[in-house]
């Protein structure tokens, strides 16, 4: 028995890799359809955008790279889908250079046939500078972005005629793979008294609860689960919802692995103690 437990504890990690792969692939092939329950943090973002009057403008900062795509891209599409369906104008931009091309892809995909570039949305692209860009946009967006991502002067976009700086923006949504939400909170939210909503990877989400508590951010969409919740709220079935069954089963597997590992640890420890006594 002890030998068996020792073998289990020292199993080749490639068997664990195979198990993880199976728990992800099988639910994708044979979906279970477990319902996604919404959390307060995600509902807060949804409710805020839902209550905005038609014709308002929101700024969506897509501060991520392809590494975080699976988590943040679905929530980006869901937020755009929500805004476009409510006739809310969207100004898109990014502080990450790898987000530049991704932002363009996201806006075009979400816009589809329901939103037109220049009238319903504008994509500004990327400029180096992080904090400097955030602060400067608070005074004049066109000072940092004289043209849109494609090189068209901002003054030629009908939508941007009424949008000069943060005063003309109802909500800033930062969808991030890194620490940019903190920058938006400090340099845009608190400086210009603007409401900030955050979408982020699950890894970073834990760190933003202090800002949720102080209401420095109005809501938080965390990870693929948060994206699935938002997809449910806007009634669109995207890749986040499709992945939730795999997420659930993989988590159960990892919990079982941890429990098995700890049982084997305690059994081996007890055996060693008994041997020492003897």
């Amino acid at each position: 028995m002890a030998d068996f437990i020792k073998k289990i504890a020292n199993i080749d990690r490639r068997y664990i890799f195979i198990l993880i792969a199976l728990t992800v692939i099988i639910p994708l092939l044979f979906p279970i359809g477990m319902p996604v329950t919404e959390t307060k943090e995600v509902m807060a973002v949804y409710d805020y955008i839902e209550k905005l009057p038609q014709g308002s403008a929101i700024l969506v900062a897509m501060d991520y790279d392809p590494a975080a795509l699976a988590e943040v891209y679905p929530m980006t599409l869901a937020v755009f889908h929500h805004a476009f369906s409510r006739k809310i104008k969207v100004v898109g931009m990014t502080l990450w250079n790898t987000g530049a091309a991704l932002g363009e892809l996201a806006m075009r995909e979400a816009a589809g046939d329901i939103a037109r570039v220049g009238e319903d949305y504008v994509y500004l692209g990327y400029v180096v500078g992080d904090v400097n860009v955030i602060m400067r946009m608070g005074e004049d967006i066109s000072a940092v972005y004289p043209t849109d991502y494609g090189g068209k002067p901002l003054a030629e976009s009908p939508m941007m005629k009424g949008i000069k700086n943060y005063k003309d923006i109802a909500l800033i949504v930062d969808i991030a793979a890194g620490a940019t939400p903190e920058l938006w909170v400090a340099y845009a939210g608190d400086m210009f008294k603007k409401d900030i909503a955050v979408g982020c990877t699950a890894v970073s989400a834990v760190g933003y609860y202090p800002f949720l508590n102080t209401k420095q951010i109005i809501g938080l969409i965390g990870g693929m689960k948060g994206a699935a919740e938002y997809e449910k709220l806007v009634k669109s079935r995207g890749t986040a919802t499709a992945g939730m069954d795999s997420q659930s089963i993989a988590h159960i597997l990892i919990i079982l692995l941890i429990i098995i590992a700890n049982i084997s640890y305690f059994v081996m420890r007890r055996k060693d103690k008994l041997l020492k006594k003897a």
Partner: protein
Amino acid sequence: MGTVIGVWIAAGLTLCVYSFLYKDNPFYKFAEHLYVGVSVGYTIAITWHQAIVRLIWYPIKSEGNYTVLIPTVIGLLMFSRFIPKYRWLIRYPLAFMIGVSAGASIPRTMRSFVFEQMGATLAPFTTVNAIVIIIGVLVTLIYFYFSFEHKGPVGVVSKVGIMFLMVSFGAGFGYTVMARISLLIGRAYFLLHDWLHIVR
């Protein structure tokens, strides 16, 4: 046709990277180095169009604004790094940028991350949660104060601080597992849906 070839190339590169799970091999090394090269090339192209053309060339060409040449010249001093005799010139653009960001951060960090957070912690202690929060913040801060030894009452308090930290790190670990599995789900979905078309 371009889309189909693109998906097959993407799938091939994905499998090259996953081959690392068996062991390090030339396919993985090829994909890894290709990724590094393409990422750098991407950065060069984006910087050229989004920054240099947009912020330097466009203001000069369309608005006749030649003042942008002053920061451009200061920025070009970064290249002095390659000439040993004039390497010290790089200090000017660095001093400018670091001075601006240091000065910008001091009052704004104090307001947003210190005063706001402290104010929320000292909220009315009318609920159990509010009491737990203030205790948690204080004991964790005491744990991180290493200027006196963690013995006696301070030792006990800092141990409670460690417990709050462990709960937080455990929650963080749970969410980290979720994040990593999500990334794998994203790639699996691409392979099964976009490449093999066996998932709807």
